[in-house]
């Protein structure tokens, strides 16, 4: 879990300095959030272009980076342009992978393949469910912070997470593996 709290605001950092320093990290965040390289690019481009226009206001925020990351999250959640076509395509491709996964006992030595397969399964989630998992397990935010970011209650966050994990069948796979390990 994260333990770092607010660091002192660096004053006088220009948009260009900010973007140059943080763009790679923002892109990684967007790739994980969207699950789609091209969508991640579109989202980050759109967000940074708007952030540039109102940078003076953003740079006055307690945490400009948190502000921009929130913009990325919101942009992803409300993104419409070309999203549907891409998502349907991606999910369609990945459903085959999902089928391959069902019922299999996982080998720890095959962890990379497992991680890759799980990444593909993540594409079957709704945007909010995926966002909750990314914020909870990638960004390592508390449910309270996630609720604040998504503008919902903590109970809703837990509900999204629970449904997402159920969809991913992580619990059952975990149990299957434990069972297999106990038997061996």
């Amino acid at each position: 879990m994260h333990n770092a709290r607010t660091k002192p605001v660096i004053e006088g950092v220009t948009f260009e300095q900010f973007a140059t320093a943080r763009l790679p990290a923002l892109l990684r965040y967007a790739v994980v959030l969207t699950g789609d390289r091209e969508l991640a690019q579109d989202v980050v481009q759109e967000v940074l272009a708007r952030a540039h226009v109102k940078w003076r206001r953003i740079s006055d925020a307690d945490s400009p980076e948190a502000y921009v990351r929130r913009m990325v999250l919101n942009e992803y959640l409300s993104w419409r342009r070309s999203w549907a076509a891409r998502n349907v395509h991606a999910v369609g491709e990945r459903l085959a992978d999902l089928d391959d996964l069902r019922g299999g006992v996982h080998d720890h030595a095959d962890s990379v393949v497992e991680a890759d397969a799980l990444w593909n399964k993540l594409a079957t989630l709704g945007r909010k469910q995926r966002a909750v998992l990314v914020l909870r397990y990638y960004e390592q935010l508390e449910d309270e912070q996630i609720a604040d970011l998504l503008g919902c209650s903590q109970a809703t966050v837990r509900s999204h997470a629970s449904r997402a994990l159920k969809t991913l069948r992580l619990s059952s796979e975990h149990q299957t593996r434990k069972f297999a390990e106990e038997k061996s």
Partner: protein
Amino acid sequence: MNDHGDQLRAAFQTRENETPDPAAVFQRVTELSRTYKRRRRGLQVTGGAVLGAGLIAGAFQLPGIIPASHNSNSSMVAPAGPGLSPAPSFSPTPSASPTPEESPASSAEDKARDAFFEAGYGYDEAVTLAKHWKISTEDIGEAKVKAGELILAHKKLPAGVKPDPAVAESMKNEKYAEAFFNAGYDFGDAAKLADTWNLKDSYDAKVMGGKKILAGEPMPFQP
């Protein structure tokens, strides 16, 4: 960390570095923000270098002046994920550096580029056109501008490229959404307006808000 947390982190790590080229993204950001700024100022573009050479030079030393943090809520810096890959820096390409002052020519280019996108054309069509005109795909922006100029002159584009009506419609909505943001409203405002107007989501609110703003109609509240 629990078991599924570990599994998910591993899954995120497998793909987190499959990012687009930051330099190319930055170049597009500068293009887009120039357009947004120009629209915001109503074509009255003054001064305002988008990216000065000095700033680029200074950016290489940023890791030293901006502290790293593992928390996205911290100020200025948050790596992609705690314990995950460190953030590599990138260096913007020279083409990402606009001229110190935006000239009437660059404004005309922006207008042409906008016309290209707003007509429903995109990157793929620009690539086709670039090949047709024997323009290097590294100068794809040149093809967009040239095509945009033809569109503004009501001329047909060569090479059989066709606009996508859905993209054109989408671009129109993007313009409304852009007007919404340019008026000073943000995502939180859009969420409130979606509730007020009983719309499905905040995007619809951005579009409706933008339409009202451009039509000079009153908004429920000020940004």
